Protein backbone atom coordinates (compact mmCIF):
# COMPACT_ATOMS: atom_id res chain seq x y z
CA UNK A 1 0.00 0.00 0.00
CA UNK A 2 1.52 3.29 -0.99
CA UNK A 3 2.71 4.96 2.16
CA UNK A 4 1.54 8.43 1.11
CA UNK A 5 -2.11 7.23 1.03
CA UNK A 6 -3.92 9.37 3.63
CA UNK A 7 -7.30 7.72 4.42
CA UNK A 8 -10.37 9.79 5.30
CA UNK A 9 -11.93 8.21 8.40
CA UNK A 10 -15.20 9.30 10.02
CA UNK A 11 -15.84 8.76 13.73
CA UNK A 12 -19.34 9.03 15.21
CA UNK A 13 -18.65 9.85 18.88
CA UNK A 14 -21.21 10.03 21.67
CA UNK A 15 -21.29 13.33 23.50
CA UNK A 16 -20.97 11.93 27.04
CA UNK A 17 -18.08 9.45 26.69
CA UNK A 18 -16.13 9.23 23.40
CA UNK A 19 -16.36 12.96 22.50
CA UNK A 20 -15.32 13.85 26.07
CA UNK A 21 -12.40 11.38 25.83
CA UNK A 22 -11.37 13.03 22.55
CA UNK A 23 -11.34 16.42 24.27
CA UNK A 24 -9.32 14.97 27.15
CA UNK A 25 -6.79 13.56 24.65
CA UNK A 26 -6.52 17.15 23.44
CA UNK A 27 -6.07 18.75 26.84
CA UNK A 28 -3.41 16.08 27.58
CA UNK A 29 -1.75 17.06 24.27
CA UNK A 30 -1.57 13.42 23.16
CA UNK A 31 -0.93 12.71 19.49
CA UNK A 32 -2.92 10.79 16.91
CA UNK A 33 -3.16 10.94 13.08
CA UNK A 34 -5.30 13.75 11.58
CA UNK A 35 -7.20 11.33 9.31
CA UNK A 36 -9.92 11.04 11.97
CA UNK A 37 -12.87 13.43 11.63
CA UNK A 38 -15.32 13.35 14.54
CA UNK A 39 -19.10 13.84 14.29
CA UNK A 40 -20.81 14.31 17.66
CA UNK A 41 -24.13 12.57 18.39
CA UNK A 42 -26.06 12.66 21.70
CA UNK A 43 -25.71 8.84 21.97
CA UNK A 44 -24.29 6.15 19.66
CA UNK A 45 -27.84 4.78 19.74
CA UNK A 46 -28.57 7.70 17.37
CA UNK A 47 -26.15 6.37 14.70
CA UNK A 48 -28.42 4.93 12.01
CA UNK A 49 -27.25 2.15 9.65
CA UNK A 50 -27.87 4.56 6.78
CA UNK A 51 -25.23 6.98 8.19
CA UNK A 52 -22.54 4.30 8.00
CA UNK A 53 -23.63 3.16 4.52
CA UNK A 54 -23.88 6.74 3.19
CA UNK A 55 -20.38 7.43 4.58
CA UNK A 56 -18.96 4.44 2.69
CA UNK A 57 -21.01 5.43 -0.34
CA UNK A 58 -19.63 8.99 -0.28
CA UNK A 59 -16.09 7.65 -0.29
CA UNK A 60 -15.02 7.24 3.31
CA UNK A 61 -12.08 4.83 3.60
CA UNK A 62 -13.16 3.90 7.13
CA UNK A 63 -15.93 4.68 9.62
CA UNK A 64 -16.08 3.90 13.32
CA UNK A 65 -18.61 4.45 16.11
CA UNK A 66 -17.26 5.22 19.60
CA UNK A 67 -19.66 4.99 22.55
CA UNK A 68 -19.61 4.56 26.32
CA UNK A 69 -18.37 1.40 28.06
CA UNK A 70 -21.05 -1.27 27.97
CA UNK A 71 -23.29 -0.87 30.99
CA UNK A 72 -22.29 2.78 31.45
CA UNK A 73 -24.24 4.34 28.56
CA UNK A 74 -25.69 7.69 29.64
CA UNK A 75 -28.95 6.55 28.02
CA UNK A 76 -28.86 3.03 29.46
CA UNK A 77 -28.35 0.89 26.31
CA UNK A 78 -27.80 3.04 23.21
CA UNK A 79 -24.27 1.68 22.76
CA UNK A 80 -25.50 -1.92 22.69
CA UNK A 81 -27.83 -1.11 19.77
CA UNK A 82 -25.00 0.72 18.02
CA UNK A 83 -22.82 -2.37 18.15
CA UNK A 84 -25.60 -4.49 16.60
CA UNK A 85 -26.00 -1.95 13.78
CA UNK A 86 -22.24 -1.86 13.12
CA UNK A 87 -22.26 -5.64 12.84
CA UNK A 88 -25.17 -5.41 10.35
CA UNK A 89 -23.15 -2.98 8.21
CA UNK A 90 -20.08 -5.21 8.44
CA UNK A 91 -22.18 -8.11 7.11
CA UNK A 92 -23.60 -5.95 4.29
CA UNK A 93 -20.13 -4.76 3.24
CA UNK A 94 -18.88 -8.36 3.26
CA UNK A 95 -21.73 -9.31 0.94
CA UNK A 96 -20.74 -6.42 -1.33
CA UNK A 97 -17.16 -7.64 -1.38
CA UNK A 98 -15.80 -4.76 0.68
CA UNK A 99 -13.56 -5.42 3.71
CA UNK A 100 -15.85 -5.38 6.77
CA UNK A 101 -12.88 -4.20 8.85
CA UNK A 102 -13.44 -0.72 7.39
CA UNK A 103 -16.29 -0.29 9.87
CA UNK A 104 -15.80 -0.76 13.60
CA UNK A 105 -17.38 -0.11 17.04
CA UNK A 106 -15.37 0.95 20.11
CA UNK A 107 -16.32 1.49 23.76
CA UNK A 108 -14.49 3.81 26.16
CA UNK A 109 -15.23 6.06 29.12
CA UNK A 110 -14.85 9.85 29.06
CA UNK A 111 -11.71 9.60 31.20
CA UNK A 112 -9.86 7.41 28.70
CA UNK A 113 -8.07 10.15 26.74
CA UNK A 114 -5.09 7.87 25.95
CA UNK A 115 -7.46 5.12 24.77
CA UNK A 116 -9.16 7.52 22.32
CA UNK A 117 -5.76 8.33 20.79
CA UNK A 118 -4.92 4.62 20.66
CA UNK A 119 -8.16 3.91 18.76
CA UNK A 120 -7.45 6.68 16.26
CA UNK A 121 -3.96 5.32 15.61
CA UNK A 122 -5.18 1.72 15.40
CA UNK A 123 -7.96 2.55 12.89
CA UNK A 124 -5.68 4.73 10.74
CA UNK A 125 -3.06 1.94 10.54
CA UNK A 126 -5.75 -0.64 9.79
CA UNK A 127 -7.25 1.44 6.97
CA UNK A 128 -3.81 2.29 5.57
CA UNK A 129 -3.11 -1.43 5.38
CA UNK A 130 -6.48 -2.00 3.65
CA UNK A 131 -5.74 0.77 1.18
CA UNK A 132 -8.17 3.27 -0.38
CA UNK A 133 -11.89 2.43 -0.49
CA UNK A 134 -12.90 0.45 -3.58
CA UNK A 135 -15.93 2.73 -3.88
CA UNK A 136 -14.71 5.33 -6.34
CA UNK A 137 -16.23 8.66 -5.66
CA UNK A 138 -17.84 9.97 -8.80
CA UNK A 139 -18.59 13.65 -9.15
CA UNK A 140 -22.10 14.78 -8.39
Amino acid at each position, binding site marked *: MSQDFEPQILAFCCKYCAYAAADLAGSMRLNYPPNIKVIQVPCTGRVDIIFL*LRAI*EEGADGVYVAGCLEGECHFVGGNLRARKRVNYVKKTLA*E*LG*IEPERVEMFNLSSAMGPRFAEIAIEMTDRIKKLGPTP*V*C*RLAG
Partner: protein
Amino acid sequence: MIVADRKPLVEIQEMVANSRKILVIGCKGCVTVCNVGGLKEAEILASSLRIGRNKNGKPMEIDETVLERQCDPEYIAQLKDKVGNYDAVISMACGVGPQFLSEAYPEQKFFPAVNTKFFGGAVQHGIWEERCAGCGTCVIHHYDGLCPIARCSKSLQHGPCGGSSKGKCEIANDVVCIWDLIVRKKMEQGRLDDLRLFQPAKDWRTARDGGPRRSIREELAS
Protein backbone atom coordinates in the same frame (compact mmCIF):
# COMPACT_ATOMS: atom_id res chain seq x y z
CA MET B 1 -49.32 -9.71 10.00
CA ILE B 2 -47.35 -11.02 7.06
CA VAL B 3 -43.68 -11.60 8.01
CA ALA B 4 -40.91 -11.61 5.41
CA ASP B 5 -37.07 -11.67 5.26
CA ARG B 6 -34.96 -9.52 2.99
CA LYS B 7 -33.25 -11.39 0.16
CA PRO B 8 -29.49 -11.63 0.25
CA LEU B 9 -27.88 -8.61 -1.39
CA VAL B 10 -26.03 -10.73 -3.97
CA GLU B 11 -29.30 -12.12 -5.26
CA ILE B 12 -30.82 -8.63 -5.61
CA GLN B 13 -27.69 -7.36 -7.35
CA GLU B 14 -27.95 -10.12 -9.94
CA MET B 15 -31.58 -9.26 -10.60
CA VAL B 16 -30.77 -5.69 -11.55
CA ALA B 17 -27.26 -6.40 -12.87
CA ASN B 18 -27.79 -4.69 -16.23
CA SER B 19 -30.19 -1.93 -15.23
CA ARG B 20 -28.92 1.62 -15.09
CA LYS B 21 -31.87 3.42 -13.50
CA ILE B 22 -33.69 1.67 -10.65
CA LEU B 23 -36.62 2.53 -8.36
CA VAL B 24 -36.91 0.92 -4.91
CA ILE B 25 -40.44 0.98 -3.49
CA GLY B 26 -41.01 0.36 0.23
CA CYS B 27 -44.39 -0.50 1.75
CA LYS B 28 -45.71 1.02 4.96
CA GLY B 29 -47.74 -2.06 5.82
CA CYS B 30 -46.64 -5.36 7.34
CA VAL B 31 -43.07 -5.24 6.00
CA THR B 32 -42.45 -1.98 7.83
CA VAL B 33 -43.69 -3.51 11.07
CA CYS B 34 -41.35 -6.50 10.64
CA ASN B 35 -38.50 -4.08 9.80
CA VAL B 36 -37.78 -5.51 6.34
CA GLY B 37 -39.43 -3.32 3.71
CA GLY B 38 -40.20 0.11 5.19
CA LEU B 39 -38.72 3.43 4.08
CA LYS B 40 -35.66 2.84 6.28
CA GLU B 41 -34.92 -0.53 4.70
CA ALA B 42 -35.55 0.94 1.24
CA GLU B 43 -32.90 3.61 1.85
CA ILE B 44 -30.48 0.99 3.20
CA LEU B 45 -31.00 -1.29 0.19
CA ALA B 46 -30.58 1.62 -2.22
CA SER B 47 -27.38 2.75 -0.53
CA SER B 48 -26.02 -0.80 -0.49
CA LEU B 49 -26.71 -1.24 -4.20
CA ARG B 50 -25.09 2.11 -4.97
CA ILE B 51 -22.00 1.08 -3.00
CA GLY B 52 -21.90 -2.25 -4.84
CA ARG B 53 -22.18 -0.56 -8.22
CA ASN B 54 -19.64 2.21 -7.46
CA LYS B 55 -17.22 -0.44 -6.32
CA ASN B 56 -17.45 -2.22 -9.63
CA GLY B 57 -17.19 1.05 -11.53
CA LYS B 58 -20.69 0.68 -13.06
CA PRO B 59 -22.50 3.55 -11.39
CA MET B 60 -26.29 3.47 -11.37
CA GLU B 61 -29.09 5.82 -10.43
CA ILE B 62 -31.37 4.60 -7.65
CA ASP B 63 -34.35 6.40 -6.21
CA GLU B 64 -36.32 5.32 -3.15
CA THR B 65 -39.97 5.84 -2.35
CA VAL B 66 -42.62 4.24 -0.16
CA LEU B 67 -46.33 3.51 -0.64
CA GLU B 68 -48.95 3.33 2.10
CA ARG B 69 -49.55 -0.26 0.95
CA GLN B 70 -48.83 -2.18 -2.25
CA CYS B 71 -52.01 -4.31 -2.03
CA ASP B 72 -54.48 -1.60 -3.11
CA PRO B 73 -54.66 -0.40 -6.73
CA GLU B 74 -55.13 3.24 -5.69
CA TYR B 75 -51.67 3.35 -4.04
CA ILE B 76 -50.12 1.44 -6.94
CA ALA B 77 -51.67 4.07 -9.25
CA GLN B 78 -49.73 6.81 -7.48
CA LEU B 79 -46.63 5.67 -9.41
CA LYS B 80 -48.35 6.13 -12.79
CA ASP B 81 -46.03 8.77 -14.24
CA LYS B 82 -42.98 7.68 -12.34
CA VAL B 83 -42.59 4.00 -12.91
CA GLY B 84 -42.06 4.39 -16.64
CA ASN B 85 -38.69 6.09 -16.60
CA TYR B 86 -36.75 3.31 -14.77
CA ASP B 87 -35.05 0.24 -16.25
CA ALA B 88 -36.13 -1.88 -13.27
CA VAL B 89 -38.27 -1.54 -10.14
CA ILE B 90 -37.58 -3.38 -6.90
CA SER B 91 -40.59 -3.88 -4.58
CA MET B 92 -39.87 -4.45 -0.94
CA ALA B 93 -43.47 -5.38 -0.13
CA CYS B 94 -44.67 -8.92 0.52
CA GLY B 95 -45.32 -11.14 -2.52
CA VAL B 96 -48.54 -9.20 -3.25
CA GLY B 97 -46.61 -6.01 -4.06
CA PRO B 98 -44.60 -7.09 -7.15
CA GLN B 99 -47.68 -8.85 -8.53
CA PHE B 100 -50.03 -5.88 -8.14
CA LEU B 101 -47.35 -3.67 -9.71
CA SER B 102 -46.86 -6.07 -12.65
CA GLU B 103 -50.60 -6.23 -13.19
CA ALA B 104 -50.85 -2.42 -13.18
CA TYR B 105 -47.76 -1.77 -15.31
CA PRO B 106 -47.28 -4.79 -17.59
CA GLU B 107 -44.38 -3.31 -19.57
CA GLN B 108 -42.17 -2.65 -16.52
CA LYS B 109 -39.91 -5.32 -14.92
CA PHE B 110 -40.55 -5.78 -11.14
CA PHE B 111 -38.26 -7.63 -8.77
CA PRO B 112 -39.04 -8.79 -5.20
CA ALA B 113 -36.50 -7.69 -2.57
CA VAL B 114 -37.96 -9.82 0.19
CA ASN B 115 -38.97 -13.49 0.66
CA THR B 116 -42.48 -13.56 2.12
CA LYS B 117 -42.64 -16.30 4.70
CA PHE B 118 -45.61 -16.60 7.11
CA PHE B 119 -48.43 -15.03 9.11
CA GLY B 120 -47.10 -14.38 12.61
CA GLY B 121 -46.31 -11.89 15.35
CA ALA B 122 -43.48 -10.39 17.34
CA VAL B 123 -42.69 -12.62 20.34
CA GLN B 124 -39.87 -10.20 21.18
CA HIS B 125 -38.40 -7.04 19.59
CA GLY B 126 -36.70 -8.41 16.48
CA ILE B 127 -38.06 -11.97 16.66
CA TRP B 128 -41.21 -13.00 14.78
CA GLU B 129 -42.78 -16.46 14.92
CA GLU B 130 -45.26 -18.22 12.69
CA ARG B 131 -48.74 -18.63 14.17
CA CYS B 132 -51.07 -19.29 11.22
CA ALA B 133 -50.76 -21.31 7.95
CA GLY B 134 -53.95 -19.89 6.38
CA CYS B 135 -55.59 -23.29 6.12
CA GLY B 136 -59.00 -21.71 5.57
CA THR B 137 -60.94 -23.55 8.38
CA CYS B 138 -59.79 -22.40 11.77
CA VAL B 139 -59.99 -25.06 14.53
CA ILE B 140 -57.69 -23.61 17.19
CA HIS B 141 -60.55 -23.63 19.74
CA HIS B 142 -60.22 -27.43 19.87
CA TYR B 143 -56.57 -27.10 20.88
CA ASP B 144 -56.96 -24.32 23.49
CA GLY B 145 -55.61 -21.66 21.16
CA LEU B 146 -52.49 -23.60 20.09
CA CYS B 147 -52.78 -24.35 16.33
CA PRO B 148 -51.10 -27.67 15.41
CA ILE B 149 -51.66 -27.10 11.69
CA ALA B 150 -49.39 -24.07 11.57
CA ARG B 151 -47.07 -24.92 14.42
CA CYS B 152 -46.59 -28.69 14.14
CA SER B 153 -44.04 -29.64 11.52
CA LYS B 154 -46.32 -32.41 10.36
CA SER B 155 -49.61 -30.51 10.95
CA LEU B 156 -50.86 -33.48 12.97
CA GLN B 157 -54.35 -32.90 14.41
CA HIS B 158 -54.85 -36.01 16.52
CA GLY B 159 -51.90 -36.03 18.89
CA PRO B 160 -48.13 -35.76 18.97
CA CYS B 161 -45.95 -37.87 16.67
CA GLY B 162 -43.86 -38.93 19.68
CA GLY B 163 -40.57 -37.70 18.17
CA SER B 164 -40.28 -34.62 20.40
CA SER B 165 -37.72 -34.54 23.22
CA LYS B 166 -37.78 -32.15 26.15
CA GLY B 167 -40.68 -30.29 24.51
CA LYS B 168 -38.78 -29.59 21.29
CA CYS B 169 -39.68 -30.89 17.79
CA GLU B 170 -37.54 -33.67 16.31
CA ILE B 171 -36.75 -31.60 13.22
CA ALA B 172 -34.92 -28.84 15.11
CA ASN B 173 -34.31 -28.16 18.79
CA ASP B 174 -35.33 -24.51 18.50
CA VAL B 175 -38.80 -25.50 17.21
CA VAL B 176 -41.30 -25.97 20.07
CA CYS B 177 -43.42 -29.15 19.86
CA ILE B 178 -46.93 -27.63 19.82
CA TRP B 179 -48.47 -30.87 20.94
CA ASP B 180 -46.32 -30.83 24.01
CA LEU B 181 -47.88 -27.46 24.85
CA ILE B 182 -51.39 -28.57 23.98
CA VAL B 183 -51.21 -31.70 26.16
CA ARG B 184 -49.67 -29.84 29.11
CA LYS B 185 -52.32 -27.13 28.89
CA LYS B 186 -55.15 -29.65 28.68
CA MET B 187 -53.71 -31.51 31.71
CA GLU B 188 -53.43 -28.31 33.68
CA GLN B 189 -57.06 -27.48 32.99
CA GLY B 190 -58.09 -31.07 33.61
CA ARG B 191 -59.66 -31.37 30.17
CA LEU B 192 -57.26 -33.95 28.72
CA ASP B 193 -60.03 -36.10 27.48
CA ASP B 194 -61.15 -33.35 25.06
CA LEU B 195 -58.49 -34.94 22.87
CA ARG B 196 -60.51 -38.11 22.80
CA LEU B 197 -63.17 -36.24 20.80
CA PHE B 198 -63.17 -37.56 17.28
CA GLN B 199 -61.87 -34.98 14.82
CA PRO B 200 -62.95 -35.70 11.24
CA ALA B 201 -60.22 -35.70 8.60
CA LYS B 202 -59.38 -32.16 7.62
CA ASP B 203 -60.84 -30.82 4.40
CA TRP B 204 -57.72 -29.22 2.90
CA ARG B 205 -59.61 -27.72 -0.02
CA THR B 206 -60.04 -24.48 1.85
CA ALA B 207 -56.28 -24.34 2.20
CA ARG B 208 -53.80 -23.44 -0.54
CA ASP B 209 -53.93 -27.06 -1.63
CA GLY B 210 -57.45 -26.38 -2.90
CA GLY B 211 -56.02 -24.00 -5.48
CA PRO B 212 -55.78 -20.17 -5.42
CA ARG B 213 -58.59 -18.62 -3.36
CA ARG B 214 -60.73 -15.54 -3.53
CA SER B 215 -62.74 -13.86 -0.84
CA ILE B 216 -65.90 -12.12 -2.03
CA ARG B 217 -67.99 -9.87 0.21
CA GLU B 218 -71.34 -9.77 -1.54
CA GLU B 219 -72.44 -6.64 0.33
CA LEU B 220 -69.34 -4.78 -0.91
CA ALA B 221 -68.47 -6.16 -4.32
CA SER B 222 -70.24 -4.24 -7.02
